Structure formats: structure tokens, C-alpha cells
């Protein structure tokens, strides 16, 4: 049995877990909740096994090719591997929260994020092959940079889930800005997933590089050759967002049915960011700068990827400082936490897919 077998199990498992957590949220049956947790733990163990198997395969492949890499170098070198690692960190962080706060309701918000990432991998059909390290990637600083970045992304992802729940719980009327903000944000996420799903159904392509991914992304909808489909896509998106806005109170009722206090959500959001921020500063910015310095001779060059990391950092610095000011409690800072994760997602995916960066894993490629 090789790593892809166990990865397969974990992918299916996380999607199942999402279904169980949502069912748990809706039916409030303890048994369903226990099953949800059991499925998540099993998938997590399976993914951990897969990760170590892939590690071994990665090591052996380099030895066959005559490059003596260290056994301590985990296989985190491309978009696929890093997204999978992100899911792993996210689930680990979530399980810790579940056991510590003894509350399963977050599962229904966290597992969809994992399922979304895994679905994104499947839909874009990105290459899952183990690839040998190109020269720019043969650096321990880069490795430390990638691992710590993803740990912090996972923390920010959890903060995103709790701050979104906080906003849903705390908004009273459909016209208040915070309500409009969260319903439109959630609507946009759903639109993006649907659009990627349509790309997949329409083209069923196996994209091997971010180049082909760029070519097919949204080609079935917003970037279609037919103007009619483009117009319909925009109208459809507006409709989806409208639906979320209209039926938002249903979501609120479901969340309210669980005794998660507002303070607890606010507290978890702050804590996740209080861990994520220092880890991101050290790993995302400092290690990244050291790597760039050693590989290219400039620790900071304002390229889009670096700049977006800095933007993300500023948004979270904004969050921390805003909390220290009177009058910036609750909903306002929760909005900042949501915006922060949007910046994280853009730093990782948007820069590669939408902005042409020279930074997408080394200019020498």
C-alpha cells in the first residue's frame, strides 16, 4: 500500500466528516457527533500515515536519482503537498480545540474548509506526483519557511471559522453592515466553489502545472468564450449571494441551538491569531526573507508574493491593535479576522493563479 491509498481514505473521510458534522449541527444527536469525531480522527491518522509513506517515497526517489537529500526533509515542495499539509494542520488544530473546549459545533465550519481544499485539489486536477527538488528549493530555510507558514495559515483558518460564526451569531438585522459583510463573504466562497466545480465538470482536465490551471480556471463561467455564459455567471453569482443573504437567519438559528457563547468564539479567534501571528512572523516573513537572501541575494524585493505576505501581516497586526482600542470590540474585529484569512488565501493561491509572480517557487524554473 502506498501513500496515495491512505491519502484517498483521508480525503473521502474528511468529506464524510463534513457531512456528519453538519448532520450533527442540524439534528443535534450525540451519536452522530461521536461518529463525526471518530471519522475525523480516523482520517487524520490515515493522512498522517500517508504523509510518512510519501516521505519515504520522496527520499527513495532522490536517492535513485543520485541526490543525497537529508532524511529529515519532508515532502512539502509543491502546491499539492503544501495544501495537503495545510489540511493536516487545520484538522490537528481543530481536534485540539474540540477536546479542549468540548464542543463539536466548530467541526461543521472547519471540515468544510478542509473538504473545500481537497475538492480544489481534485477539481483543478493539479499534479500529485512526487517531483524532485529543483535547485532553488534545496534549502532548509525554505523548508522551515513553508512548514511554519502553513501552521500559521491553519491557525488563521480556524480563526476565520470562529469569527465567521461569531458574526453570524451577533448580527441582528439583514441591513446592518456586519450582516451584509458575512453573508456576501460566505456567498462569494460558495460561488467560487461552484465555479471551480463547473470548470471540472466542463473540461475534466488534468492540470499539471499552475500554467494550465491558470488557463482553465473559471473558463466554464466568468471567463467563458460565450458572452451569454459570462453574463449568466454574474447573474447566477449575484443570485447565490442573495440567497445566502436571505436565508442567513436559518444558519443563525442552527448555530444558536448550540451553547457556544459569543465570548468563547471571540476568545478562540483571538487565541488562534495570538499563536498564528508570531508563527507567521517568524516563518512566513523572517524565514522567507532569509531564504530569499541566501538564494537570490535580496532579503526583500517587493515581489507580489512577498508583498501579499506583508499585507496579511498588516491585517493581523491591525486586528491585534484594534482589539486594544476601546470601541473596537466584537463584530468589528471579527470582520478584520475574516478579511485576514481572505488575505491569506490570496497570498497562497491568488498570487499564483491571478497575479503573475516571479516568486512562484523560484524564478529559475
Amino acid at each position, binding site marked *: 500500500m502506498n501513500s496515495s491509498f491512505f491519502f484517498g481514505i483521508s480525503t473521502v473521510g474528511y468529506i464524510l466528516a463534513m457531512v456528519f458534522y453538519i448532520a450533527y449541527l442540524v439534528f443535534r444527536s450525540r451519536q452522530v457527533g461521536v461518529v463525526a469525531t471518530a471519522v475525523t480522527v480516523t482520517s487524520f491518522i490515515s493522512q498522517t500515515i500517508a504523509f510518512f509513506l510519501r516521505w519515504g517515497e520522496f527520499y527513495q526517489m532522490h536517492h*535513485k*536519482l*543520485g*541526490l543525497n537529500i537529508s532524511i529529515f526533509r519532508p515532502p512539502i515542495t509543491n502546491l499539492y503537498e503544501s495544501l495537503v499539509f495545510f489540511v493536516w494542520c487545520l484538522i490537528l488544530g481543530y481536534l485540539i480545540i474540540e477536546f479542549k473546549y468540548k464542543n463539536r459545533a466548530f467541526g461543521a465550519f472547519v471540515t468544510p474548509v478542509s473538504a473545500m481544499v481537497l475538492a480544489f485539489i481534485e477539481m483543478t486536477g493539479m499534479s500529485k506526483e512526487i*517531483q*524532485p527538488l*529543483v*535547485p*532553488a528549493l*534545496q*534549502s532548509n530555510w525554505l523548508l522551515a519557511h513553508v512548514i511554519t507558514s502553513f501552521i500559521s495559515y491553519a491557525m488563521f483558518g480556524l480563526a476565520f471559522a470562529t469569527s465567521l460564526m461569531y458574526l453570524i451569531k451577533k448580527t441582528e438585522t439583514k441591513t446592518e453592515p456586519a450582516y451584509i459583510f458575512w453573508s456576501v463573504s460566505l456567498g462569494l466562497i460558495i460561488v467560487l466553489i461552484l465555479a471551480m466545480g463547473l470548470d471540472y465538470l466542463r473540461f475534466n482536465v488534468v492540470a499539471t502545472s499552475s500554467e494550465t490551471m491558470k488557463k482553465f480556471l473559471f473558463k466554464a463561467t466568468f471567463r467563458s468564450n460565450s458572452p451569454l455564459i459570462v453574463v449568466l455567471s454574474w447573474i447566477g453569482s449575484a443570485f447565490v449571494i442573495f440567497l445566502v443573504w436571505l436565508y442567513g437567519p436559518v444558519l443563525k438559528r442552527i448555530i444558536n441551538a448550540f451553547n457556544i457563547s459569543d465570548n468563547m468564539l471571540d*476568545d478562540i479567534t483571538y487565541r488562534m491569531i*495570538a*499563536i498564528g*501571528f*508570531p508563527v507567521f*512572523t*517568524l516563518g512566513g516573513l*523572517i524565514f522567507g*526573507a*532569509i531564504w530569499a*537572501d*541566501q*538564494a*537570490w*541575494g*535580496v*532579503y*526583500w524585493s*517587493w515581489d*507580489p508574493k512577498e*508583498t*501579499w505576505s*506583508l*499585507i496579511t501581516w*498588516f*491585517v493581523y*497586526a*491591525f486586528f491585534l*491593535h*484594534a482589539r*486594544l*482600542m476601546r470601541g473596537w470590540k466584537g463584530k468589528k474585529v471579527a470582520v478584520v479576522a475574516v478579511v485576514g484569512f481572505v488575505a491569506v488565501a490570496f497570498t497562497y493561491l491568488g*498570487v499564483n493563479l491571478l*497575479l*503573475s509572480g516571479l516568486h512562484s517557487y523560484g*524564478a*529559475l524554473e
Partner: protein
Amino acid sequence: MNRDDTDKKPFLDRLWDFFASVRLAIVLFALIAVSSIIGTVIEQNAPAEKNIIVLKRLVGDSLAPAFYRILEAAGFMDMYRSWWFVTLLMLFAINLIVCSLERLPRILRLMREPIRPLDSDKRNFPIKKVLRVKGSPEELREEVLKVVKAIGVKAENSPLKDGGYQLYGQSGNWSRLGVYITHLSILIIMIGAVIGIFFGFKGFLNLPEGYTSDVAYARDGTPHPLGFSVRCDDFEVEFYGMSEMPKDYKSWLTVIKNGREVMRKVIEVNEPLKYGGYTFYQSSYGMVPNARGIFILKLTGPGMKTETVFKRLGETFQIPGTNIIGYIKDYSPALAFDRNGNPYTYTDMMNNPAVYVEFKEGDKIKYAGWILKRFPRTWTLPDGNRVEFVDYWGVQYTGLQVRKDPGVWVVYLGCIIMAIGLYVAFFMSHKRVWVFVTRDGKESAITLLATANKNRGALERKIEASLKRLQRGR
């Protein structure tokens, strides 16, 4: 303070207050973030046409040229060096300095202040635990001390009447400095960056194999004297096995000062050469246009006689110990064969160099064929002699980044300080604990009061656990 007070203050005080506010920091965070976003949408220092195309996509064909002119006039094409972006960063630095100076004295006072016993246990504290335990206060002293120690606090004692006492202590009071250490580190990093801008050099040098240069070039192409010379002896790309996946880029460099070779080093992507304050990084490579290079061939004849020859296209060589003459007839930097077995060149980079050699003995062509550098199978000729294709030399150049940055160590120092500062700011806290133990008949009443400026929940859990242990022990 109300508005009227503010207006009455002298101008300098108001300026100070303006820069001391966290609100300004919030505004600056937002302004820097938003302008940086624009800076990533507009490609920096790119040819004008490129950004006009980007703008056409965003605002439509008719508006794009006007938009471009406005954005260019506002400095968005080289935004991170524009006067207003630099001003934003300066305001940010001033804000940080003033804000920290404003609060530092209070924090220092708070930090140095020794902890005093409380006058009464009737006070309200964020953490307050009351319990009754068998035994007199004196009998309990050891155990209560254990509770206080478990929290990580050094206890002091203050006797109360009736044989009771108060144990109290604090720890981590200096952790309140974490925020200021973090803020200081940002300033240090900014200072490092400024040193780099004023006293450093960032440039490049494309050096063909066999060439020497005593200058590097700035981005705009102006030469910058190095004070010594660098020679590129060789450049090679190594591949993973037979694949097209590059494994390593290597340049053999020699540093020459006052006519003497002072240093030799093989540089790779993460392995630069450092000399005289300058660092040379492997960053790119390419082919020198129209260069005529030299084929380096290692010949082995009968009886293992070997010889290395240096020949150009169209020249001939003789296999040692035989009458066989090889004639270098053709060359390809990247040879491949199509489905019909016809050779073709698939890229103009040197990915798979090959020479076509015709071998003659007397007037008769014995055999002819392609010899590939990366395929040792092709080195052995039908008659058992060998022609090893060592290198095609003198046609590639190595692309070096040349940098001198005396500020980089200041930046690294700032990074280390930032890591320490963030650790202290987020993972350490200032904890204070007071425990009152008084006699209450045959039992003792214990009241524990505590505060922490960070992570109060963790302290509370720790206290609950150690109190439970105390109760169970009785």
C-alpha cells in the same frame, strides 16, 4: 479629556498626541496594506505596454491610457520607492517610536514595582477561589507554599492575626516589555534596510565562460567597479538522471586581485561566493549569442592510451594509437530524435549537447554518429575506442546577482529581536497571586486571589488543579 482641552494644548503637544495614538497606527496599517495591494496589481518597473494591457483588462480599452498616465504621475509604476510610500513608512516609524515612548515610563514603573500584601481578602479579582480545609494555618503552610510555587511564583510571607498569614508573589513582570521589544525590532529592521539602501549595491553580472570582469552592473546598466576581478572558469547545469529536470546550477569562479588569484569557489543556488564585502549568487544562465565554443573530448585508443583534446566545430582529431581521424561535422545544444529517427534540436539551451563526428581511416568513412554528453552509451565507438564528450566550453554565460549590503546584519539582528519580542508578548504573562490563610475553628479558610495580563484561563486551570491536589491531600 474632551475636545476643548485638546484645542487648548500647545501645538507640539497635540502633534505628540497625534503620533502617540493607536488610531493613527490603525489608519497607517490600512493605508500601507491597501497601497501595497495596488502595487502588486500593477507590475513594478515593467515596460509601459505591459501595465497598459493590465489596465485595459481592468477598466476597458478607452480609459486605460488615461488611467496609466494618472497612476504613473502618482508614482505607482515604481511605488515602493515613491515619495509618498516612503513617507507612509516614515510616519509609521515615527508613530511607533512616539507611541512606545509615551507608554514606556508607565510600563517600566509597573514592572519595577514590588508586589505588596493586600489589606483584605474581600477584594474582587479576576481569579478568586475560596475553600476550607482541615488543619491549622501553620500545618497547611508547606502545602499552600506548594500551590504558589506550582504557579511559578516566588512567595513572600506576611503574617496575619490569629496565626494566619498571607503568602503572595509575582512572576513575569518584565514580560510586559515584550510589546516594546517587538516594536523596537521593527525600527531596527527599518534602520537595516535604510543602511542597505544608502551604502549597499544591488546589481548583476553576466559572465561568459572564460571571461573576466572587474565591474558589476546596476539595474540601469551602469558599471560599478568591484576593486577586484571575477573570472568564470566554467558553468554547468546538472539534471536529474536522464530527465529534463534541473538538479543543480554550478559556476566555477576565480577571484583575482592585483593580478593574483586569491580565491576559487564553485557556487550553486544556495551556495554563493563572498569576497570583499560582495556576494555573488547563482541566479540565471544563458547562451552567448553566436559564440564558437571549444569541444573538450577525452579520447581513449587501444591499450587504454588516453588524450584530452580541445577542438572547434569543423576541426579534426586523431584517436591515440590509431590512424582514425574524427571530424566534428555538426553540433546540437539539445538533441532529440523524432518518431522517424531524425535528429532535431528541441531547445536552444544546452540541455542535451551532442556532436556529430565522422570517423575516417585513410579516405574511407568508417562510421559516423552522434555523441551525447549526457549519454555515456554513445561514447563507445563500434571498434571499442572511446570518445568521451566532456564539455562544450565557452558558449554559456552564468548570470550572477551581485550584492553588497552592510545593513543585512542589522536586519537579521532585528529579526532575532522580533522573534524574542513576539515570544515574550504572546507566550509569557505577568502573574500575581495572593493567598490568605486564616483560622476558622478547627479548619482553615483559604482565599486565593490572582491576576494575569495574558492567558488568564491557563492560570486559572493551573490554580484549580493545584488547589484540588491540596484538598485531596487532606
